[in-house]
C-alpha cells in the first residue's frame, strides 16, 4: 500500500461519501443479496401459484413446516461458525421424538415432565458428542456421523420398529396450537396482530437507536436509503404476516417460540462475549486459545446446545405429526446444513449470521412449498434445491475472490 492511501482525510468529502456507499454495497452484498433472493423467490412463487403462496392458511403451513429446520439451524450456525459440523441432528430429532412417544403414550408420563426430560436427553447427547470433538480432537464429521447411525438405530429400537401415537391433546398444542383469541372477535385474532405490530415497532426502535448512537460515535457507514428501505421492508413484512395470520387462526405457538429463540440467538452471536469467542474460535482456533479463551469448552457447549435444540425440534416434529415414526428426521440434517450455508456461513468457520441462516431456511422452505403447490415432482424438487445451494455458495466464493 502506498503511504498516501493511508493518510485519508478523516472527514468524508461528497465524492468519498458516494464511493463509500458503493464500497458498503460490495461489502454487504451477501447480506442484502440473500434477503433480496428470498423476496424474488417469494414474488416468483406468489405469481406462478396465483397468490396461493401468501394466503393466510399457506403462510401458517409454511411456518409450521419449517419450524424444526429453523430451530435446528440456530444451533447449527453456532456449530459451523465454530468450525465444525453436526450430521447427527436428524437422527437425534427422530430419537427424541421416539423417546417422547414412549414416555407419554406408553408410560403415560406427564407431557410437560416428559418434554423437559427430552430436552435434557438432547443436551446430554450433544454434550457426549461435543466431549469427544472438543477434548479428544476427534473430527466432528466422524463423531456426528457415528452419532447419526447410533441414534437412527436407537430410535428404531425404542419404537420397536412401530409408529407410536397419538399424543394427548395438550402435547399436540406445541406444534398445532395457536395463540388464544383473548379479544373474542370472530374470525380475527387481534392479539396476534397487536403482537406483530409491537415486535415491528420494537425492532424499528432499536434500529433507529443504534443508528443514532453509531452516528454520534462517527462509525456509521450504512447509506440512509438502505437503512430506511431495509427497516421499513422488514417492519412492513412483519405487520403484513401478522395481519394475514390473524385473519386465519392467529400466531401458531411454534412461531412465538421460534421468534424468541431467533431473538435470543441473534443477541448472543452479535452482542455477547461468548458470541465473540465462538466467531474467534472458528476464525483462528490457535490464536484464540493463546488469547486465554477456553476453546475446548466453547466447542463442547456449542454441541450441547445443538443437541438441546435438536431435541426441541424433535418434540415439535412429533407433536406436528401426532405420532413418532422410526423414519422421522431422515435427511433433516442436510436441510439444516444447507440452510446455514445458503445463509452465508463459511465451511472453514468464523463467518455466518443467525439472520442469514433463518433466511436460508425460509428460502428452502418457500421453494419446497411453492414447488409442491405447483405439483412439481419430488425428483425435480431435489435437483432444483441442490442447484440453489450450489449457486449460493458459488456466489459467495466469487464475491469473496472479487474483493
Amino acid at each position, binding site marked *: 500500500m502506498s503511504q498516501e492511501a493511508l493518510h485519508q482525510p478523516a472527514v468524508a468529502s461528497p465524492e468519498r461519501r458516494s464511493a463509500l456507499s458503493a464500497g458498503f454495497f460490495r461489502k454487504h452484498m451477501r447480506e442484502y443479496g440473500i434477503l433480496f433472493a428470498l423476496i424474488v423467490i417469494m414474488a416468483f412463487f406468489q405469481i406462478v401459484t396465483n397468490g396461493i403462496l401468501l394466503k393466510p392458511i399457506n403462510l401458517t403451513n409454511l411456518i409450521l413446516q419449517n419450524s424444526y429446520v429453523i430451530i435446528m439451524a440456530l444451533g447449527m450456525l453456532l456449530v459451523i461458525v465454530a468450525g465444525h459440523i453436526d450430521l447427527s441432528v436428524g437422527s437425534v430429532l427422530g430419537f427424541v421424538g421416539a423417546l417422547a412417544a414412549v414416555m407419554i403414550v406408553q408410560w403415560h408420563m406427564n407431557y410437560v415432565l416428559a418434554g423437559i426430560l427430552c430436552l435434557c436427553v438432547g443436551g446430554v447427547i450433544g454434550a457426549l458428542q461435543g466431549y469427544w470433538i472438543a477434548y479428544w480432537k476427534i473430527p466432528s464429521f466422524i463423531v456426528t456421523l457415528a452419532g447419526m447411525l447410533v441414534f437412527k438405530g436407537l430410535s428404531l429400537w425404542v419404537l420397536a420398529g412401530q409408529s407410536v401415537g397419538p399424543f394427548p391433546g395438550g402435547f399436540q398444542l406445541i406444534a398445532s396450537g395457536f395463540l388464544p383469541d383473548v379479544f373474542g372477535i370472530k374470525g380475527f385474532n387481534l392479539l396476534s396482530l397487536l403482537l406483530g405490530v409491537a415486535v415491528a415497532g420494537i425492532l424499528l426502535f432499536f434500529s433507529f437507536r443504534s443508528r443514532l448512537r453509531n452516528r454520534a460515535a462517527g462509525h456509521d*457507514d450504512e447509506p440512509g436509503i438502505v437503512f430506511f428501505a431495509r427497516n421499513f421492508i422488514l417492519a412492513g413484512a412483519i405487520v403484513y404476516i401478522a395481519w394475514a395470520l390473524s385473519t386465519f387462526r392467529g400466531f401458531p405457538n411454534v412461531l412465538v417460540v421460534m421468534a424468541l429463540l431467533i431473538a435470543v440467538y441473534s443477541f448472543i452471536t452479535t452482542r455477547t462475549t461468548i458470541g465473540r469467542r465462538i466467531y474467534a474460535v472458528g476464525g*483462528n482456533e490457535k490464536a484464540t486459545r493463546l488469547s486465554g479463551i477456553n476453546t475446548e469448552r466453547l466447542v463442547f457447549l456449542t454441541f450441547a446446545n445443538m443437541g438441546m435444540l435438536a431435541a426441541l425440534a424433535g418434540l415439535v416434529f412429533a407433536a406436528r405429526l401426532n405420532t413418532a415414526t422410526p423414519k422421522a428426521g431422515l435427511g433433516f440434517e442436510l436441510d439444516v446444513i444447507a440452510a446455514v450455508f445458503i445463509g452465508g456461513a463459511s465451511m472453514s468457520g468464523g463467518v455466518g449470521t443467525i439472520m442469514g441462516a433463518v433466511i436460508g431456511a425460509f428460502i428452502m422452505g418457500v421453494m419446497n412449498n411453492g414447488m409442491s403447490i405447483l405439483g412439481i415432482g419430488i425428483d425435480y424438487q431435489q435437483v432444483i434445491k441442490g442447484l440453489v445451494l450450489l449457486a449460493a455458495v458459488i456466489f459467495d466464493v466469487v464475491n469473496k475472490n472479487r474483493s
Partner: protein
Amino acid sequence: MATILEMRDITKTFPGVVALDGVNLKVEEGEIHALVGENGAGKSTLMKVLSGVYPHGSYEGIIEFKGEECRFSGIADSEKRGIIIIHQELALVPLLSIAENIFLGNERANGGVIDWHETFQRTCQLLAKVGLKESPQTRVSDLGLGKQQLVEIAKALSKEVKLLILDEPTSSLNETDSEALLQLLLEFKAAGISSILISHKLNEISKVADTITVLRDGSAVSTLDGTNAGVSEADIIRDMVGRSLNDRYPPRSPKIGETIFEVSHWTAHHPQQPGRKIVDDVSFQVRAGEVVGIAGLMGAGRTELAMSIFGRSYGVNISGEVKMHGRPVDVSTVHRAIAAGICYATEDRKSYGLVLDDTIRRNIPLANLTGIANGIVVDEHKELAVARDYRERIRIKCSSTAQEVVNLSGGNQQKVVLAKWLFAGPEVLILDEPTRGIDVGAKYEIYSIIAELAASGKAIVVISSEMPELLGVTDRVYVMNEGRFVGELPTSEASQEKIMSLIIRSGHRN
C-alpha cells in the same frame, strides 16, 4: 558480461493503486542481484510480473530475457525459459518425500508410470549439488525449515534454471543455515546461474550481492554496486525509506526498578517424546523497566520456554516456579497467566496471533473481552474507543479500524498483536521475534514501542534470532542453547561474537 534479463518501464496498477511505476531492472549473466525495499515497495509485484503470475497484457512495459522479448501467460511459461521463483512461504507438500516433491508436476515417467529408479538417482544428484545429506525418501515434514529451503532449490535445479529468484529465503533460517544458503548462491554464480535475492537482511546482501536495486513506493530509486566497499548499509536504508535513519534503534535511558518477574528451575519435556527435555532447568528474572533478550539459535528452545510458561501452551511434564513480585503465581492456563499479568506475543502472528479475517477492532480486545463488556454484553462503543485509542498510540496505519487485519502490512499486523496484548494489561510482556518479516521503517517503530513500554515500568522479554536487534534494544541478554541458559551478559558488554562463542562452547561441552 552479457545481460540476461532486462525489464523496461514496467507499470502495474491495481484498482486505485499504482503498484509499480515505470520500473527498470537489469540483471547480468552470472550475478547475484539483490532487490531491497520496504514491505509494499513493489518487490513481490515485480517478481510476479517477471514470473508470469501477472500475465502479459495485465501490465505495461517490456521484459527481455536473453535478448528476446517475453510475453509470459503463466508460471509454466517462465519456468520453461528457466526463470524459477522460490517463494517466502515454501510450496512443498509436507507429507510427500523429497524426491516426490522435487519432481512434482515434472515426474520422471514413461507413459504415466513413474520410473522410481531414475527419480531417486536424479534426486540424489540434485541433493548432492545443494549439499543436503538426506535420503530422497525422507518426508519433507521431517525436515527443518533450512533443509526444506534446500529441497526447494534442488527442485529449481531440476528444471534447468537460468535465473533463480529467492523471496526472503533466510527470513526463517538460523545463522548457520543462512550462511550455507548464501554460500550455495555463490556456487551457482560460479556455475553461471544468475539470481535475484529479495531480502531484508542487509548484512547478507552486502556479503553476496553484486548489484543492489532499491525499490521504494513502486519505483526503482537507485541501483548500487554491491562490490563497491563504499556502499554502506546506511546508504541502502536511506534509499529504502527515503529518509536517513541515523540510528536504527531508538535511544533509551533505562530506569530499572525492582524484580517483577522471576522464573526458577523451569523444565519442560517434548510433547511427543516425553523423555526429551526441551527446556532444561532454566532460571531468570526481569526487573521493572528492563528489556531482557533471549539469544540463541533456531531450535534452542526459546519459543518453547516462553510458551510453556504462558499457560503450558507447549510441552508436557512441566516443572518449576514462576513468581510475580516475589509471590508464586499460577500459570497453568493461558487465562491464569494473563490474569497474573504475563502476556506472550507469538513469533507466528498469522497462525497464532490474529484472527486474520476479522477486523482490527475485533482483534484488539480478544485477550480481554471483559474489558469492553458490561457483564456478558459487548459494548461496541467501548470497543471502538479502545481500537481508536491504540490506533493513535501505537500508530497502526489503516483506513479504518473496521479494516480486516489480513489486508494490513506485516508491521501493522504486528502492531495489532501488540495492541491486543497491551489491552490485556500485562506487567510482563514476552515478545517472540517481534520484527520477523517486517521492513526497516516498521521495525524502528516496534522498537520505539518496546522502549516506551519499558519506560512505563513494564518488564519486557525479547526473543530474537537477529543478534543486532537484541544488542540494539535490550539491557541484558540471556543466551540459550539446547534447552539451557548458557550465559548472561549486560548488553553493554555483549557482542555478536561473545554470544556466538557462548553458544558454541556450550555445544562442545555436551
